[in-house]
């Protein structure tokens, strides 16, 4: 579904990603872990071109998205993204946040999008918050709504950029629970996370990034039970 070849990204003279090769299949739940500065977020943000790669190609559902001729806006409608800082639109109500994109992109009528939004709000456990504004909600609630907003586009893959890192500890669980349900429903997911428990129990594959490369990867059982790379061993001994 997503095919990454020789992906490189440099900010000025600073190389963040140095030639990543990776293939993500439909239905996979890939957790990306690693120390800060290892390039995990940059890698994720390259997948929907929020960061413009400086080298290599990314193919999504058979289309080369790094080709300047590709209509990236169209492809992004099929890739949902959830941010560390939620990034809900503060001037719009929860309902308007969710239905803005589907309506403005003429994928649904206002009524259809409204119905879909209410259905998604029920799914993330906040059916009574449609008319609330983001500032009235807790961090956990905002992130659940951000997930609903991304799902409203019916994406084929969901990208999560440290979705629980900005949350108070008691709110992490409610967000992970929604993500777990999403995974159970068969959604393809790429999750940059520091939640090792989540990576272990939900991911079908775990990637360890270090200094702009994928240093090690594997199924969670082997990955956490029997790490090979010395940097991974060191990392896991610190975080587990």
């Amino acid at each position, binding site marked *: 579904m997503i095919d990454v070849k020789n992906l490189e990204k440099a900010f000025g003279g600073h190389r963040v990603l140095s030639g990543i090769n990776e293939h993500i299949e439909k239905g996979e739940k890939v957790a990306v872990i690693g120390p800060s500065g290892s390039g995990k977020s940059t890698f994720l943000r390259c997948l929907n071109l929020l960061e413009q790669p400086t080298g290599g190609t990314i193919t999504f559902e058979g289309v080369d998205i790094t080709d300047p001729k590709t209509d990236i*806006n169209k*492809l992004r409608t099929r890739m949902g993204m959830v941010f560390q800082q939620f990034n809900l639109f503060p001037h719009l109500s929860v309902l308007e946040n969710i239905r*803005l994109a589907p309506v403005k992109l003429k994928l649904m009528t206002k009524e259809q999008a409204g119905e879909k939004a209410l259905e998604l709000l029920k799914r993330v456990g906040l059916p009574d918050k449609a008319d609330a504004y983001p500032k009235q909600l807790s961090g956990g609630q905002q992130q659940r709504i*951000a997930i609903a907003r991304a799902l409203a586009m019916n994406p084929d893959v969901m990208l999560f950029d440290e979705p629980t890192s900005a949350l108070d500890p008691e709110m992490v669980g409610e967000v992970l629970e929604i993500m777990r349900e999403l995974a159970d429903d068969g959604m393809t997911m790429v999750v940059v996370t520091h939640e090792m428990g989540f990576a272990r129990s939900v991911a079908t594959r775990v990637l360890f990034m270090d200094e702009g490369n994928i240093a090690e990867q594997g199924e969670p059982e082997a990955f956490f039970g029997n790490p090979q790379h010395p940097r991974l061993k060191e990392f896991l001994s610190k975080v587990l």
Partner: protein
Amino acid sequence: MEWLLDQLKQTFIEGSRWRYFAQGIGITLEVTVLALLLGVAIGVLVAVVRSAHDSQRGNRKGLGHVLLGILDWVCKLYLTVIRGTPMVVQLLIMWFVVFKWARDDMMLWVASLSFGINSGAYVAEIVRSGIMSIDLGQSEAGRSLGLTYVQTMGYIVIPQAIKNILPALGNELITLLKETSVCGFIGLTDLTKGAMIVQSRTYSAFVPYISLAVIYLVMVLALTGLLNLLERRLRASDRR
């Protein structure tokens, strides 16, 4: 006291001279409102072009980017020329050079155009500062949903930016209102020109010009009141 009453009578009542003031207020307000509308339109357009040009990073090439570069250059030239020359000079050039073929009944339109073009340069920089005040995450969230750059600006960034720049925009509007007092240079009988005509009839300057100042002051106070009201209403959404 008697002298003052006599002067007031001479200035306003004799020969129905109050009409110079009344019609002058009409012209001044007309020019201000037309210039405001044009100025905001130009300002938003220029600000979006400049922000789009500033926000593009990386190595994407192509016709669109060359075009954006040219547009940005044109905008910068516009800002430099308009902000670098006096308003009166621009007005004189507009009427006596650019529109030298125009009939006298088009004077109001030419003046409004000239003031609008002038105001647009200042509004552009105000709007650009507003756009820059909005967290980058907001436009990333919009783009990640598949919205285009222009849609993201229009539905997400600018509505939030307007709230932040309203005080500065109000300042510009007050400046604009007062600056229209140079309309007389091309022979447009705005409020100031009206007072000058009255002075030339009565050979007395005190009452016409003090009244003139009071009328401007009252108009500015009314405007300030309206702006405060608008700001309070927009801010109300912050407390929800």
